[in-house]
C-alpha cells in the first residue's frame, strides 16, 4: 500500500478513537450512554441514521450489483428511499414524543413495555432477545466485511485484520457510547457521501462523456441500460418492499428517539433524505460508470463488489484514495458500532436494570453498558472467526425479520389507540414466524415452483403481522384507562 494512503487511513482511525475519548466525559447516565441524553441535533441525527443504516452495502454491494446487472438495480434504491422517507415522515416525530411520555423509554423494548403498560414484561423480554440474537449476528457479519476489506487493502493477515477492526470499533463505542457512535457516524456519513459523488463525476469529467458511457455499456449488453431488463412484477415488488424494513430497525429508530426535540425532526428528515438519495445515486452511478470504465478488461465475478475500490485506485491520487478507503471502512464500522450499542442497551436497560437491579446507580449502569459492548463484541468475534459459519446466514433474515416483527407494531402502537399488549405480541410473533417460514418455503414445500415463492418475505410478514395485531386487539379486552390516557398525551 502507498505510504500516503496508509498515513491518511491511520489518521482517520486515530480520529475515531479521539471521538471516544472526547465523549467519555459527557457520558454520565445510562440515557447518555445509549441515547446521548436525547441531545442530537438535526444534522447528526440525520446522517448518523443514514450511515448506520447503509453499512458496506452502499459502497460495495450496490455498486457491485449495478456493475454486474446494470440499471435494473434502481428498484431497490427507490424502495429504500420511499421507505426511509415514510419512516421519517410518520414515525420519527411521534416516536420521539411517545418514548418521552411513556416513562422516558430509552430502548425499543422499554417503549413496548411502557406503551402497553405490560406487567407480564413479555414484550420487553421477547423484543430484547430478538434484538440481541440478530444484532450479535449482524455485528459478526459486519466484522467479517470489515476484515475482508482490511485484508484486501493492506494485505494483512485475516485474523489480524479482524482483531484490528474490532478493537478500534469497541474502543470508541466503549468509551464514548451513543454520542461517539453518532458523531463518528455523522463524519463517516459525510465521507461516504463525498466519495460516492466524486468517483462518477471524476469519470464523466476526465475520462468519458455520459453519451460515451451509455454507448459503451449498451454495446456490451443493452440490458445494462434498461431499468426493466430481467425484472418481473414480483421481482420489482420484492425490491421495492425493502423499504418496509425501516419501520422496525432498532438502530435507526433509536436515532429518532435521541433527537433533541420533535421540532428538530423536519430538518433532520430533509437532511437525511438529501443525503440518502444522492448517496444512492452515487452508488448506482459508481457501478454503472464502472461498466464502461472497465469495458476493456472487466472485473472477474468475485471482484465486482470492489468496483468502487478499483475505480478509486485509478481515479484519485494516493491521499484521496486513503480517504476513500476510510469511507468504505466507515460504511461498515458505522453500522457495526450502532448495532453493538443497541445490543449493549438491551443488556443494560432491558435485562440488568429491568430484572436484576432496578435501583442500580447510573454510573453502575453505564459501566454495565460498557462491558456489555465488550461482551457482545467477543461473541460477534467468535462468530466472525469462521466466515463460513452457518449462523451468519441469519443476517439474510435480519432486515425482513425486524421489519415484519417490529415494523407494524411500531406503526400501529403510535397511531392506533385501541391496540393492546396481546395485539403487539401476536404481531411480533406472526411477523417473525412468517419471515422464517417464507424464507424456507423451498425446503418446506419441495417441488412447488410457483413464482410467488420468490416474493421477498417482508411483504407477507408485514401484512400478516398487521392482521394479527388487528385481530388480536379486537378480540382482546380494551386497553386500560391509563394506557388510553397516555396515548392521548402524545
Amino acid at each position, binding site marked *: 500500500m502507498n505510504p500516503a494512503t496508509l498515513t491518511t487511513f491511520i489518521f482517520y482511525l486515530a480520529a475515531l478513537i479521539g471521538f471516544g475519548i472526547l465523549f467519555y466525559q459527557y457520558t454520565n447516565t445510562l440515557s447518555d450512554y445509549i441515547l446521548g441524553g436525547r441531545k442530537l441535533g438535526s444534522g447528526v441525527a440525520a446522517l448518523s441514521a443514514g450511515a448506520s443504516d447503509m453499512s458496506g452495502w452502499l459502497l460495495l454491494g450496490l455498486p457491485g450489483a449495478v456493475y454486474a446487472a446494470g440499471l435494473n438495480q434502481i428498484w431497490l434504491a427507490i424502495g429504500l428511499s420511499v421507505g426511509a*422517507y415514510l419512516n421519517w415522515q410518520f414515525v420519527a416525530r411521534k416516536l420521539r414524543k411517545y418514548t418521552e411520555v411513556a416513562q422516558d423509554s430509552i430502548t425499543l423494548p422499554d417503549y413496548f413495555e411502557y406503551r402497553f403498560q405490560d406487567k407480564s414484561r413479555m414484550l420487553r423480554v421477547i423484543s430484547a432477545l430478538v434484538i440481541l440474537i440478530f444484532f450479535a449476528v449482524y455485528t459478526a457479519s459486519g466484522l467479517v466485511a470489515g476484515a475482508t476489506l482490511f485484508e484486501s487493502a493492506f494485505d494483512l493477515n485475516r485474523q489480524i485484520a479482524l482483531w484490528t477492526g474490532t478493537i478500534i470499533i469497541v474502543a470508541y463505542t466503549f468509551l464514548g457510547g451513543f454520542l461517539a457512535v453518532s458523531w463518528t457516524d455523522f463524519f463517516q456519513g459525510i465521507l461516504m457521501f463525498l466519495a460516492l459523488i466524486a468517483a462518477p463525476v471524476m469519470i464523466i469529467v476526465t475520462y468519458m462523456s455520459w453519451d460515451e458511457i*451509455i454507448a459503451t455499456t449498451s454495446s456490451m449488453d443493452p440490458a445494462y*441500460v*434498461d*431499468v426493466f431488463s430481467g425484472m418481473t412484477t414480483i421481482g420489482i415488488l420484492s425490491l421495492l418492499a425493502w423499504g418496509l424494513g425501516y419501520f422496525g430497525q432498532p438502530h435507526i429508530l433509536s436515532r429518532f428517539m435521541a433527537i433533541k426535540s420533535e421540532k428538530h425532526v423536519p430538518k433532520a*428528515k*430533509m437532511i437525511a433524505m438529501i443525503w440518502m438519495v444522492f448517496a444512492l*445515486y452515487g452508488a448506482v452511478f459508481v457501478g454503472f460508470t464502472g461498466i464502461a470504465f472497465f469495458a476493456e478488461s472487466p472485473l472477474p465475478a468475485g471482484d465486482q463488489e470492489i468496483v468502487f475500490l478499483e475505480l478509486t485506485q485509478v481515479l484519485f491520487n494516493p491521499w484521496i484514495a486513503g480517504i476513500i478507503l476510510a469511507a468504505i471502512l466507515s460504511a461498515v464500522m458505522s453500522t457495526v458500532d450502532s448495532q453493538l450499542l443497541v445490543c449493549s442497551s438491551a443488556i443494560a436497560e432491558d435485562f440488568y436494570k429491568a430484572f436484576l437491579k432496578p435501583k442500580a446507580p447510573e454510573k453502575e449502569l453505564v459501566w454495565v453498558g460498557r462491558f456489555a459492548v465488550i461482551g457482545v463484541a467477543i461473541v460477534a468475534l467468535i462468530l466472525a472467526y469462521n466466515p463460513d459459519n452457518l449462523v451468519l446466514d441469519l443476517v439474510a433474515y435480519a432486515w425482513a425479520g425486524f421489519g415484519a416483527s417490529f415494523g407494524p407494531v411500531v406503526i400501529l402502537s403510535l397511531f392506533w389507540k385501541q391496540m393492546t399488549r396481546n395485539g403487539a405480541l401476536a404481531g411480533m410473533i406472526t411477523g417473525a414466524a412468517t419471515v422464517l417460514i417464507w424464507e424456507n418455503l423451498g425446503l418446506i414445500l419441495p417441488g412447488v415452483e410457483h413464482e410467488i415463492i420468490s416474493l421477498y418475505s417482508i411483504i407477507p410478514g408485514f401484512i400478516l403481522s398487521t392482521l394479527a395485531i388487528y385481530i388480536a386487539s379486537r378480540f382482546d379486552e380494551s386497553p386500560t384507562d391509563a394506557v388510553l390516557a397516555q396515548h392521548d398525551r402524545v
Partner: protein
Amino acid sequence: MEQTSLSAASWFWLLVPMLTVVLLSIITFFVETKREEE
C-alpha cells in the same frame, strides 16, 4: 444499433421517484417549520 441515450421510461424511473422524495422532504420541512412558528 448503438444506443447513446436511455429510454424515456428508464429516465423516468431513474429520476422521478427518488427526486420526488427529496422534494417532498424539502416541502414538508418548510410547511412544518412554518406551522411550528405560528
